[in-house]
């Protein structure tokens, strides 16, 4: 009796294990060819031990590609990334539980102060690693091309414009027959860096039409709330007349709004996001080596798409353990290298970092050392 029960329990367990292992293995090929280029292997050689990170779920797909690429170049290195959220990642990093964090927002001033203890007298530095366009996605049958100004977008999400044939929408879409369907604005139910960047865009670009404070939590009343990027995408797809915002790579089956920039309209592409990143300015009052960026939401380049999310890797300039310092430095170098950025682009549709930014990052990473 007992033996057969044991066998019956062991069989499904074995199946689960095999499935788990094979899905891990499935991640490898995508990263391995990206990791085989010279930059990666030279930067990531001789890395051994375990490197733990935690943070933004927006980086999850990219982190998987990076981990595959980095461990391909140095097989003795084990990298773990726990996508539990930016806030949780920063907390864990500051408490010393993980060696690096991924975060959709750069460290706040009080966190920078806290970090000096964690970093053995050094500083914590924010390194931009993952740049992604946020699509303003809509579900409106018969309308393949939709152009909106930031003011109109703000009023739609604030519940001031309620039907698709509103004159404000029609004004930017000459020749498009807009139905009288009610607009169902969809936003995130959970706190999110996507919401923070989208509301930041609305408050800076809408000339006062958006009156709420930008932040991780959706501030405006009304609209439908959905859990996570996938929840928002599903909610938009389920209801005709919906509009929402989500990472571009996750919302490809939906229509994408072209937003007004200057006098033209730009859609969410990796190239246009990279153009907007070029116009980002360094945040003020940051420690040496920190590359926190304030994104220009009203770029002067007519082909820049300003609704972008910049996600950072956060590490220390000094670690007590020499292996930690080498691993963080090596991993960050690979992630921000051309090969690393390509791996992220193919895995998560992110926009590449510019050469000038990479030069800055390389200088910053040089400062990582053993205390």
């Amino acid at each position: 009796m007992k033996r057969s029960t044991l066998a019956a329990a062991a069989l499904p367990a074995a199946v689960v294990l095999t499935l788990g292992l094979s899905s891990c293995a499935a991640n490898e090929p995508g990263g391995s060819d990206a990791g085989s280029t010279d930059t990666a292997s030279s930067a990531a050689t001789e890395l051994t031990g375990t490197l733990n990170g935690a943070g933004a779920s927006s980086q999850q797909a990219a982190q998987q590609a990076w981990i595959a690429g980095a461990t391909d170049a140095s097989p003795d290195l084990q990298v773990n990334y726990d996508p539990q959220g930016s806030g949780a990642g920063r907390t864990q990093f500051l408490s010393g539980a993980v060696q690096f964090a991924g975060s959709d927002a750069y460290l706040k001033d009080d966190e920078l102060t806290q970090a000096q203890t964690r970093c053995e007298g050094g500083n914590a530095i924010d390194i931009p690693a993952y740049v992604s366009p946020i699509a303003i996605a809509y579900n409106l049958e018969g309308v393949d091309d939709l152009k909106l100004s930031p003011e109109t977008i703000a009023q739609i999400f604030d519940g001031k414009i309620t039907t698709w044939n509103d004159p404000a929408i029609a004004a930017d879409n000459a020749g498009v027959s807009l139905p009288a369907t009610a607009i169902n604005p969809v936003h995130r139910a959970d706190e999110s860096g996507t919401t923070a960047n989208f509301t930041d865009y609305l408050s800076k670009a809408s000339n006062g039409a958006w009156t709420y404070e930008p932040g991780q939590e959706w501030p405006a009343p009304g609209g439908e709330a959905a859990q996570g990027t996938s929840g928002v995408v599903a909610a938009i797809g389920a209801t005709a007349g919906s509009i929402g915002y989500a990472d571009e790579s996750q919302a490809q089956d939906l229509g994408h709004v072209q937003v007004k920039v200057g006098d033209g309209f730009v859609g969410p592409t990796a190239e246009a996001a990279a153009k907007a990143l070029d116009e980002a300015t360094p945040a003020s009052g940051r420690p040496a080596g920190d590359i926190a960026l304030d994104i220009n939401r009203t770029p002067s380049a007519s082909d820049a798409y300003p609704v972008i999310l910049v996600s950072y890797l956060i590490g220390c300039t000094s670690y007590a353990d020499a292996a930690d310092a080498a691993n963080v430095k090596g991993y960050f170098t690979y992630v921000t290298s051309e090969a690393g950025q390509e791996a992220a682009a193919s895995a998560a549709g992110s926009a590449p970092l510019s050469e000038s930014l990479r030069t800055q990052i390389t200088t910053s990473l040089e400062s990582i050392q053993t205390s």
Partner: protein
Amino acid sequence: MSTTTPTRPPAATNAVRQRPGDRIFKGVATASGLAILVILAGVAAFLLYQAYPALVAPAADIAGGEGFWKYTAELVFGTALSAALALVIGAPLGVGIALFITHYAPRKLAAPLGYVIDLLAAIPSIVYGLWGVFVFAPALVPIYAWLADNLGWLPLFAGPVSSGRTMLTAGLVLAVMILPVITALSREVFRQTPTLQQEAALALGATRWEMVKYAVIPYGKSGVVAASMLGLGRALGETMAVAAVLSVAGGVTFNLISTQNPGTIAANIALQFPESTGLGVNLLVATGLVLFVITFLVNFAARAIVARTSKG
């Protein structure tokens, strides 16, 4: 069974030699019994310790800026409303299914039907959530539109209807989720109704319905109440399905078919925890403490009801 019977039965029971098996089993059973108390005390202590900063924090520091009780009150309302909807829909349905299986269904149908209902309990709640979002909610939109058009004068159906991710959908999904608990327990209770009483009722000329009404239901009443309370407990604490299905906007409203709904405690914790730090985490744990207390109260109420009905 094989133990030797003592010669002087009542007085000598203490003198019976204890075998190792007895002592070990007694120890294991006692340890298990104590473990559950220790675990419960541990959870309560953790909740109190972690919740304390949020309970004493100034109102302005709490999310929403209006203090802990205002923040929690809305969530308690949402939790109670969704669970009540689930119970109102799920309990009669569950009892009906149990009666059908025990007293109406042909034997060939009853057993498979029982298995199918039990299978519902094995479905992970996130699957219910996904089903709710992708299939059930969109399918309900035309019904909600009809309700809003024809019964819109009722505050319950004021609308406006834009998508199906409403409080009523959440209540319906929860009702399906608590069905197996209510059905399985009610079925067992109804099955235990003494055959003699049932046959006596029939012999007195009662129809099948009258027999169920006078013999089966009174006999199973306390069991049905207990089953419903277990179901209510599940509905109160359900997390992932509600987090996925319900569109939350905060506030207190009885409007069941709009996308502006109060959240529930468990779903709110699941949604907000990943990006919370410091006091935000304490606040979420404090709402968890409130849910813990509510669940306790529900259980005590259930026991009180069961005790009263089984006396009468």
